[in-house]
Each structure stands twice: as C-alpha cells, then as structure tokens.
C-alpha cells in the first residue's frame, strides 16, 4: 500500500536523522585509538570555564595518552539538579569540580561517587594541601571521603568605605551593636526625610532556600563560635545563638536599615546604594569590573556583642569528585591530583579570584605576589581557615527552605518573635528528618 510505504519510509528517515543527531560528535572520542578519554565538567561560569580550559590544555599536552574533554556543566537552575539527572541517566562525567557538599548525601546514597580514600595516596595528597580540621568536615556519614575539598568562598562583609565615612562611621562594625549603630548613622545621613535610596545593608527578601547561605547560616556559624545546624545528625540550632541572629536581622528591617524589597535587575551594592554586603570573594571581581571607582574593604561578618574568639563563617565550598560511571578510576584520580597542585591553585586564584582550600595560602611564596597585587583577597584567605561546611544530611534544601520561611516571618516582617521562629524552624526540620527515615 502506497500510504503505508510512505509512512514507513518517513519513519526510517526520521530514525536515521535522530541517530545522526544523537551520535558521537567529532572531537569527543579518544585522541587516538589506544588512548583513554576522560570527561571533565567544571562550573559553567566564564572564569571557571577559562580556568578549566587552561588546565585541560596543559594536561593534554603533558599526558597525550589520557585525553581530557572539558564540557561545562549544562546550564540549569542549579548544578545539583543537573548532576542528579545525570546520575539517574548514567550520563555523568568522569570528574566534576562543582560538587556542593550539601548534595553529597544524595549522590553517595545513589552510589554515584567513587570512594577517594580508597586510593593509596589520598591521605598524603590531602595532608600536603588541606589542614586536617578542614578536611574532616568532608568525611561522609559512612566514614569515607568522596570529594577533594577544592575551593572555598568564605562569606564575609564587604563594605563601602565612602558611604560609611560620609555617614560618620569611622570603625568597621564588628558586632551587632556596632552594626546597628552604624546603620542608624547611614540612615540619618542618607535619608533624613525618611525615605531614601541608600541602605546599611540589604538581603533578598524572597524566601529562597539558597539565600540562607548569605544571612542566617553564616551568621549562625559566627554567633555560635563555629557550630552548624546539626550535631550527630540531629538538629541542634534551637538555641540562643540562632535567636540572636534572627533578632539581629529583625532589628535591621524594623529600624529601616534594610529595605523590605528586592531589586530585580540591578545590584544595589555595585550601584553604591548600600554600605555593606554579605558575600564571597567572587564579589571582588564584580566590583573591579562593574564599579571600579568603589572604595571598599572586607571584614568578618558581625557577631553578637561580647563574642569572643575567632569569627567563623560559611565556607561555600565547591569540591571535586569522581563519578562511579567512570571506566578509568586511576586516571581520573591522577587528573584530580593534577587539578589541586599548588601551581594550579595559583591559576584558580588568578583567573577566578576564588580561594583554594589550602593551609599555606599566606605562607607559600608561590602565592605571595598574587596577594600583594590583590589586597582584598588577603582577608578572604585569612578567613578560609575559619570556615564551616554545609551539614551533610538529607533534604538540606528543604531544611534551608523551612529556615527561610521562618526568617521571612520573623526578620523581614516582624510577625513572629525570634525564639518562636527558631523553635518552629527546628520543629519543621525534625519533621523533614522524620520523613526521611
């Protein structure tokens, strides 16, 4: 029958076209028939793509028998979604350098990652680079290591010297009391009539879980002297430190030092519309690019009055892992070791302005020139050893969402007292944990 033949022919042509479209692309195979090819996914931002491109070129020159293909992580709402989908579809790369420790539980539970401490030289490689106390934060629940701590972006307070100076603030506020006093001065100077466009600080008021990396979570770590949300797998943040943090942000909003809004499409700090900003070292590159005239400094985030000891913060780590789909574990491990060599950590600093997880950043002569040329980065390097990792528990995103909801009710809109907000956040966290059992 003619119609049948035509349809069958059309289907065959369509399948052939689909096969061509989905087949291997030129340049993705091994460099030669006998060689090995590894696939490497870096983060998809321009700086890290440039760094990855540079490192892969060096590697491929030095190791013609192990060819590395670099492909930035496919762009999505979050890297974690892409990696989970890739694990589900068994399309993971051999190596990825954008592993968020908060998602590690999901990856390991799915059997997606290679145990790195099974390599005989893991301990010696780590000991040469990362202080033991920092490294221990990355031990998984089963007692093993599945990630190499690669870089950290300690959340700190970046401040606009001109705005503070003009408001009569001579000392960088280090405590809640000093911060609120400085906020009063900035408010009085910037908008004596009551409504103006310069703020002491600002946070995205939308209840987005990942925004807690820049307010509640680092401030809780700082206020508690280095504690995170969980101890031994149990939520333990129902304490005075958490209430103090909620109370501090509540004061910032209630007194009008923070706006109860968000700024779609523009960054008020880069536009010099706010005096302080809680962010990581990547902000330095943005300031240089978009606000080169800004006179700025970097300091630890404020802590409760009377706080003693070092000020800890959230490290916002991104690490390197090998996926269990790899057919070349040993070669992939060699490539991982190559990525964390000291000279390549220097490239990480130079190209990305992000802090390698090293204990010798300020002592190693290799890095001295970089820090001389980039004084603001010294503060981040000093802070790097006083950082904490995200808790390695399941459903961290929903737990942060629960905190975000309570933060919004208590801090932004002042509808719930701090202690009640913290209690409710812990209660919902326990429900989520219970659900996961």
């Amino acid at each position: 029958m003619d119609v049948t033949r035509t349809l069958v022919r059309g289907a065959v042509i369509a399948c052939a076209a689909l096969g061509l479209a989905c087949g291997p692309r030129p340049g993705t195979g091994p460099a030669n028939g006998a060689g090995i090819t590894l696939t490497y996914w870096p983060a998809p931002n321009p700086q890290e793509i440039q760094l990855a491109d540079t490192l892969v070129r060096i590697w491929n020159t030095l190791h013609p028998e192990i060819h590395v293909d670099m492909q930035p992580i496919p762009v999505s709402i979050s890297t974690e979604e892409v990696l989970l989908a890739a694990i589900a579809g068994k399309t993971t790369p051999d190596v990825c350098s954008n592993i968020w420790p908060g998602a590690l539980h999901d990856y390991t539970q799915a059997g997606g990652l290679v145990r790195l401490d099974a390599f005989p030289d893991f301990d010696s490689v780590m000991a040469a680079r990362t202080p033991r106390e920092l490294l221990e934060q990355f031990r998984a629940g089963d007692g093993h290591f599945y990630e190499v701590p690669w870089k950290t972006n300690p959340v700190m307070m970046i401040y606009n010297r001109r705005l503070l100076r003009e408001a009569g603030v001579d000392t960088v506020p280090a405590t809640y009391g000093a911060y609120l006093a400085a906020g009063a001065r900035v408010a009085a100077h910037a908008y004596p009539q009551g409504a103006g466009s310069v703020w002491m600080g600002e946070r995205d008021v939308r209840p987005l879980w990942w925004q807690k990396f820049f307010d509640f979570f680092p401030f809780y770590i700082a206020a508690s002297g280095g504690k995170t949300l969980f101890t031994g797998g149990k939520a333990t943040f129902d304490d005075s430190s958490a209430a103090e943090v909620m109370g501090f942000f509540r004061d910032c909003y209630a007194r009008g030092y923070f706006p109860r809004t968000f700024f779609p499409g523009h960054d008020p700090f880069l536009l010099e519309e706010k005096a302080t900003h809680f962010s990581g070292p990547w902000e330095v590159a943005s300031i240089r690019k978009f606000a080169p005239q800004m006179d700025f400094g970097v300091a630890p985030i404020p802590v409760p009055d009377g706080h003693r000891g070092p000020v800890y913060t959230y490290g916002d780590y991104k690490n390197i892992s090998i996926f269990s789909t790899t057919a070349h574990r040993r070669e992939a491990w060699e490539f991982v070791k190559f990525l964390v060599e000291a000279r390549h950590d220097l490239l990480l600093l130079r190209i990305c302005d992000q802090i390698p997880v090293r204990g010798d950043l300020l002592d190693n002569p290799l890095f001295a020139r970089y820090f001389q040329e980039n004084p603001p980065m010294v503060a981040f390097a000093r802070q790097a050893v006083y950082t904490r990792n995200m808790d390695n528990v399941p459903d961290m995103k929903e737990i942060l969402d629960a905190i975000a909801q309570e933060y919004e009710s208590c801090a932004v809109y002042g509808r719930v007292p701090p202690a009640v907000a913290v209690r409710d956040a812990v209660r919902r966290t326990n429900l989520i944990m219970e659900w996961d059992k």
Partner: protein
Amino acid sequence: MTGPRSLVRRLAAGDRTAYWFVLPYAVFFCAFVAYPLVFSFILVFHRWNVVTPMEWIGLKNFDRLIGDGLFYRSLLNTLTFLVIHIPLQAAVALGLALLLNTAIRGRGFFRAIYFLPVVVSGVAVTILWQQLYSYDNGVLNAILRAAGLGRVPWLVDPSMAMPSIAIMATWKNVGIYIVLFLVGLQNIPRELYEAAALDGARPAAQFRHITLPMLNPTIVVIIVLSTIGGFSLFIEPYVLTGGGPMQSTLSGMLYIYNQAFSFDHMGYAATLGFVYALVILAVVMLQRRVIDTELTP
C-alpha cells in the same frame, strides 16, 4: 460513502492504513499523557528522589499531606487568587469586548493590542511586571510618587501580593477572553436589540435583559476556563515572589514544583498533584451546579 461503519468495516477487512494515521497521536498520548498519569499514580505510594530506587511507603504521603500546613496554605492562596481573578478577568474582558464590538475607529488595532500579552512568553511578561511593581524603583511607584502619593507595597506586603499577581494575570490573559466574549456578542441576533429599542428599552436595560442572558454560555465557559487556568498559577509567583511574602503567594502548582524539583520529593509531589486534581474537579463541578441554577433563564 465513508463513515464510522465504513471505517470499522475496512479495519475489520484487514486494511491497516487507518492505524498509521492514528499512530502519531496514539504515541503522543501514551508517552505524554497516559504513561505520566499511571507513573504518577504509582509514585503516590512511593518515596523517590529520581536517583535512588523507589521505596514503597504505602499511604505515608497522604499522612504527610494531612498534616502539612503548607498544603492548606497553598490551597487557600490559590482559592484567594481565583476569588479575585475570575470576576476581575470576566468584568474587564466583557467591558473591553463591549467597546470593541462597537463601530470605533482602529478596532482591529485594539483587538491585536489586547491579544498581544497572550502570545508573549509568561516569563517575559512576569519580568516586565517585576519592574513595574518594584517597591523602591518600580515604574508604578515612581508615578505614584510623582503624583504626590505614597508608595504601594505591591509585592512585599502579604496582603497586597496576591491581588497584585491577580492584576498581572488578568492583564496577561484578558485578550483570549475578549475574543470569546466578542464571539458571543456577535452571535446575539440584532433583531432582539431592534425589538427592545422599539419597546423603549434603554441601552442599560438592553444589556441587562438581552446581552447578559444571551452571553450565559460564554460566561460559563470563561468561568470554567479561568478556574482551571487559575489553579495552574505558577510562573507569576515563581518569578515575582518565590511564594512570599510570608507564603502569601505560594500557589498549589508552585508548592508541587518545589516539592518535586527543589526538594526531589517526587512521590509527595505526585500525591499533591492528584489531590489538587480532585479539588479542581470538585470546584468546577460546584461552579457548574451554581451557574446552572443562577444563570439558566
């Protein structure tokens, strides 16, 4: 002669050509409707985060749903949106359709303009309204300030956020309802108006006693479509507010999305989806009953 009987006879006779014509839609239906529906129903009884194997948990998802305050909140928010959005949408669409049904100059131009937001991407429209609604540097508040009035907390006050989203959704979708009303208006026989005019009926009386009753079928369609569309409220709160302030714009669809794709709770999200489907069914059936009672002459 061709017809159902002829088709059945041809199929029975072994001519399978018709199967080939049915095949594309059958494949589409199985892949994108039947399979997801069945799979979602299976998920209702499982815990699954996409990467780990599915775990049978019986009715635990329903147990969680019953005690989940955010589920009730999202349901209440969605109903609040519907209560504001449906009358607003119907009134604005009817008003504009009445204007566009008169012999004004540039009628075609205005019809195109009102329909334009319908074909523009929902995300693009939402970002545009984000700029309009921004509290500190939005266009609307700039106009209000220039006029000597105070700023309105469009999206940052819990009591204002959902009405603001309803206004935006009305602007976005009103074009399609204008078209439906225009079709309804143009199907009303002119003789009815002529007879009413001869009897001395003024335009307001003509509208009340002729236009509205004759538009009843259109109004029913619009209310049902608006209800189903309103239950699908997602892009606007997702982009504009993230569900805040204080969960006041957390719609049902946004909550399902968060559970499925932010927190990887596929089983619980499927449970929420099925329960919402039942709620939509109940609301639409209730509406039909009320409309049949109230509007049927």
